């Protein structure tokens, strides 16, 4: 058995966030080098602020400024920073209770090593040079032995408040299609389509998944299907999909390859789009270097009888 395929999969998207009144004030404040908390019904000040009281569920809107100095309440050393983290050199993740706040804020502490960090140590904010209204406007915290700063009593009213942010997210996976699909993909490189037959219901799965979803049993018997097949149903695509270099209109079809227990999907070419029909007999057209057939074209055979493919739509 050949080795199971693996490849990196990067999932990346610039999500947008509507902030609502409290987060809007908090992030706008950071832009202006002001840290705001929110006062709860029982008089505590939460930093970072939240919109709703965790105890009473009441809406919170009483914003209060706290100091840019505070105390580390707990920490963990990060010896190997990863992309996107606040500092590129080793640092401590810290929870910092800012002076005037009752809760702690998570951020990074720039320190030479874990021996230089301890719970209870005084720290202050190191502001980023360029600030846009984001948590990264606090570049990090730094050790600080000086005088405690006094908050200026800001109320959270700002010119041109930040109302939304873009939160770019990226996840890095290693994807493996597994044993059955690896065999299928390897066979495609020889322009053959291999499925697996369920030992119980005898249906041939293309692409195979290694198990029959109906019977719940493992599949292993290799079965070559096609190359010819039948268009079982289709649509005519009239709008260009993003990242697809195909001229519209074109036909996107379900194609039951001969011998397969279910249809796969492909584009139909070699025939005007408005002449494609259910039952059309087709064969794959391969292009050099492509993993999958570029499209399927008519074979010239008579159309298949509806009864022969009505279970394969």
């Amino acid at each position: 058995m050949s080795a199971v395929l693996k490849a990196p999969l990067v999932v990346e998207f610039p999500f947008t966030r509507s902030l609502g009144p409290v987060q809007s004030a908090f992030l706008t404040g950071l832009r202006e080098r002001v840290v705001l908390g929110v006062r709860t019904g029982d008089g505590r000040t939460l930093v970072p602020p939240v919109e709703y009281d965790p105890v009473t569920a009441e809406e919170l809107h009483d914003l209060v400024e706290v100091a840019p100095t505070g105390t580390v309440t707990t920490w963990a050393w990060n010896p190997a920073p990863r992309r996107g983290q606040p500092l590129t050199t080793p640092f401590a993740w810290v929870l910092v209770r800012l002076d005037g706040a009752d809760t702690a804020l998570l951020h990074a502490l720039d320190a030479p090593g874990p021996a230089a960090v301890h719970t209870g140590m005084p720290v202050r904010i190191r502001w980023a040079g360029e600030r846009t209204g984001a948590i990264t406007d606090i570049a990090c915290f730094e050790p600080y032995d000086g005088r405690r700063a006094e908050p200026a009593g800001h109320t959270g009213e700002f010119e041109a408040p930040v109302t939304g942010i873009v939160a770019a997210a990226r996840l890095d996976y290693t994807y493996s299609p597994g044993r059955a699909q690896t065999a299928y993909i390897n066979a495609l490189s020889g322009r053959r389509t291999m499925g697996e037959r369920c030992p119980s219901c005898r249906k041939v799965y293309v692409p195979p998944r290694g198990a029959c979803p109906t019977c719940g049993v493992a599949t292993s018997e290799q079965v070559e299907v096609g190359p010819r097949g039948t268009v079982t149903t289709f649509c005519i695509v009239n709008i260009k999909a993003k990242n697809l270099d195909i001229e519209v209109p074109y036909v996107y079809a379900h194609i039951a390859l001969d011998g397969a227990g279910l249809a796969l999907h492909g584009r139909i070419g070699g025939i005007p789009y408005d002449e494609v029909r259910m039952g059309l007999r087709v064969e794959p057209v391969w292009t050099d270097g492509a993993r999958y057939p570029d499209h399927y074209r008519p074979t010239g055979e008579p159309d298949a009888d509806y009864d022969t493919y009505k279970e394969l739509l």
Partner: protein
Amino acid sequence: MSKEPVAVVGIGQTRHVAARRDVSLAGLVREAARRALRDAELTWADIDAVVIGKAPDFFEGVMMPELYLADALGAVGKPMLRVHTAGSVGGSTALVAANLVAARVHTTVLTLAFEKQSESNAMWGLSLPIPFQQPLLAGAGGFFAPHIRAYMRRSGAPETVGALVAYKDRRNALKNPYAHLHEHDITLDKVMASPMLWDPIRYSETCPSSDGACAMILTDRAGAARAPRPPAWMLGGAMRSEPTLFAGKDFVSPQAGQDCAADVYRQAGITDPRREIDGAEIYVPFSWYEPMWLENLGFAGEGEGWKLTEAGVTELDGDLPVNMSGGVLSTNPIGASGMIRFAEAALQVRGQAGEHQVDGARRVLGHAYGGGSQFFSMWLVGDRPPDS
């Protein structure tokens, strides 16, 4: 011991729109929850548990948002559950909540579903570039359009039926202040003249992308007795699943959908849904799914669903109105869409649907499905308790 009867005593929705840039996710769900509490004349303290649902986390990019939404929903110190069953999630979320009341685990449960589609792109979230796989060749409607063509072939339905559904649902939406699309100048000609995107699906036969939330307060018999407004009673509720793809899958009328409906009718003692049910809120993301689901749900025989649509039976003044609220075709915050169906069914039997009220609606079906016809959830609600 028999189950506790489950009553809907509070319903709240946001005004669904393309983008709610004025609120955070927390602010959005809060708005619907507050309206449901106000409808029930209850406070956060009256709620014993919170059951929340939404579609995939990639739709906003907040992983496990229920953790951060606990404060906004008064869930601190209470059980909070999150449900996920793709597009059907709004329905299955309500059913999980209902089962907690029916099993007497909790007395009064807040259930809520939401989506803030403007924060991401659902099509991106559903078509990640998986290595080795053939890229999707057809865009959002390309998944659905071939199934619609299969239905047309099987039923012999005339090509105009899809447009009739869209025209009806968009007119119904004009009577629903919470609906996203309010197309005041809609005509059948305009629907027919809209661009054919994925033939046989026209632009006007597709659902919008919405930001919105929907909440309900479910309670027991004693809670219903204290309710300030008439409750809706759950007469039956069921969920069914099947794989998205398998040999023999019937996309036109999935077995799981048929089985789910049959279970609901059995629980409710319904033997002839067409005669015994007064209306239905059915998850119709593309117009042709109305006749398809009418058959799947047993309102019409196989190949006969389009005849109900064509004859006007499913119009607001027909004898089986469907999607009185305007449906998914007019409002689609994906994760909330199923709960909106369930809630709109409840509004009807409570007599509180306003301008889109069906006179004398006593039993109404709420239906949701999702995940490429993988998940189904439904409930039937009535104006009387199940044992009366």
